[in-house]
């Protein structure tokens, strides 16, 4: 993995991947939203509100996926001191926070007409709110220290401690009584959702994933330039 640690090498690879990821994201999101709005049927119980699923569920998957990716990067940073791992974690948390926020708000907009309430302090909703706060805490710690290396370390420790929340979110619908419906796609016995809804959902989710790849590569490039600017500023300070 350390072969990719060189910033110039990383930037070269990122520049090669970015056009494909960006174009793929636009295509998958375009097709996915078209299918979700015009082709997928209304639900027999939930009516047209089921269309909220096509943004709510991919957002929630991304919020969880990004957190796990961030925790893996943080472990790599703490154990192997991989220099790009810290940069990856820093680039990821604002995107994860965005998706956690979208999960909560779109869920609320779905819950109001279907459950009759915007919010309920049950296992699923509360653990998702905690995930959002973990992202905000991670972002705050990154910027809390004058020395960026200390910020990296503190944020990495938070990311690793907070990863315990991920299985809690996933299994909260099985462990506790909740308004939230149980999983209908990621189940051991296979999806229970009809294919006319499953395909639009999977294509939209692929679009979200490619959007994340595009954005995280751009943000890592940006962060590497920021690190270089910090080094240059320091060198100038010493020289003067």
């Amino acid at each position: 993995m350390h072969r990719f640690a060189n910033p110039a090498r990383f930037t070269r690879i990122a520049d090669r991947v970015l056009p494909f990821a960006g174009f793929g994201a636009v295509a998958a999101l375009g097709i996915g939203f078209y299918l979700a709005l015009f082709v997928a049927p209304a639900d027999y119980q939930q009516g047209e509100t089921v269309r909220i699923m096509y943004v709510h569920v991919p957002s929630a998957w991304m919020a969880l996926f990004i957190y796990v990716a961030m925790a893996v990067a943080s472990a790599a940073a703490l154990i192997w001191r991989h220099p790009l791992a810290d940069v990856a974690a820093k680039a990821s948390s604002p995107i994860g926070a965005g998706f956690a926020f979208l999960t909560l708000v779109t869920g609320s907009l779905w819950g109001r007409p279907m459950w009759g309430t915007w919010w309920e302090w049950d296992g699923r909703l509360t653990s998702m709110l905690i995930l959002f706060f973990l992202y905000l805490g991670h972002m705050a710690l990154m910027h809390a220290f004058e020395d960026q290396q200390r910020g990296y370390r503190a944020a990495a420790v938070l990311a690793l401690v907070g990863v315990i929340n991920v299985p809690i979110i996933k299994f909260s619908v099985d462990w506790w009584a909740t308004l939230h419906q149980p999983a209908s796609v990621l189940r051991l016995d296979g999806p229970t959702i009809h294919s006319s809804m499953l395909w639009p959902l999977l294509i939209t989710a692929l679009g979200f994933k490619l959007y994340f790849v595009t954005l995280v590569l751009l943000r890592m490039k940006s962060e590497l330039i920021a690190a270089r600017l910090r080094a240059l500023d320091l060198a100038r300070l010493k020289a003067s």
Partner: protein
Amino acid sequence: MREIADFFQMGGYAAFVWPALGLTLLVMLGLLVTTLRQLRARQRRLADLEAQGASRRPRREEAPPRQEEATS
């Protein structure tokens, strides 16, 4: 015309479906735009600094050693 109106009404749930979709697009686009603007600004600053550094380096070499450095 009637079909279009029906579509936008979302079976009476327009007030929930459209804000959910709109907000998702807004947040995703917003993150992308802020990221791109920050990247451009940093790239410009780095280019400026490198241009300055390239023109200043020869002069710094010619300058005589400063007092503190000479005495310490």
